[in-house]
């Protein structure tokens, strides 16, 4: 299943839709969220809090690779699976 369509991660999709509008849905799978200016490193902290609040998974932000993975929607989903 396309992770964008997975209802389990709808809260993540909503996070980006609230910021960027509905058109972001078609782009999410392909873009670097930081490079495209949609989020910055501070927003990654907010995303980590959101993830923990919604599905109880604590992201290890002290790990550089994990922090880097937070830059892309699909790699965020991979961290959660």
């Amino acid at each position: 299943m396309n992770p964008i369509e997975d209802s389990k991660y709808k809260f993540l999709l909503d996070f980006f839709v609230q910021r960027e509008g509905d058109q972001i849905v078609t782009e999410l799978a392909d873009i670097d969220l930081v490079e495209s200016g949609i989020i910055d490193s501070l927003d990654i902290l907010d995303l980590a809090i959101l993830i923990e609040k919604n599905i109880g998974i604590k992201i290890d932000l002290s790990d550089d690779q994990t922090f880097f993975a937070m830059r892309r929607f699909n790699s965020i989903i991979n961290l959660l699976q």
Partner: protein
Amino acid sequence: MKIHHVGIASMHLNTALTSLMLAQSDIIEEVHDELQGNVLYFIRQTQETSIIELVIPFRSNSTVSNFTRKNGTALHHIGFITPSLKLSIDKHKLQKGHFLLKEYKINVDCFGGKVKTAFVYANGMLIEYIENA
């Protein structure tokens, strides 16, 4: 817990100094933190006063740069001395909304020389723990 220092982030040193009614001559130490992309300016007017750390980013994509773009010159973190960095971090890890961000060593003379430090993000607040190495 006793506050060891407060960290104030600003895009420009002079802006931070002016905001706090301080002068260049109040700076007692300057540290280039290549890892985080910041220059740290330490101020302590007397032995009785707390240390103020001015955090000035030199990389436009650093976390502190993002912070100053959003908040201007503002309180960035509060620093505490801890006898055990690990213990302090472990306590935070048990809390919801608390995340360890970075752990590293840095040499700051006015902190007593080489120290181990860790930054924890706790529900929107940034806390630095310092353990003498």
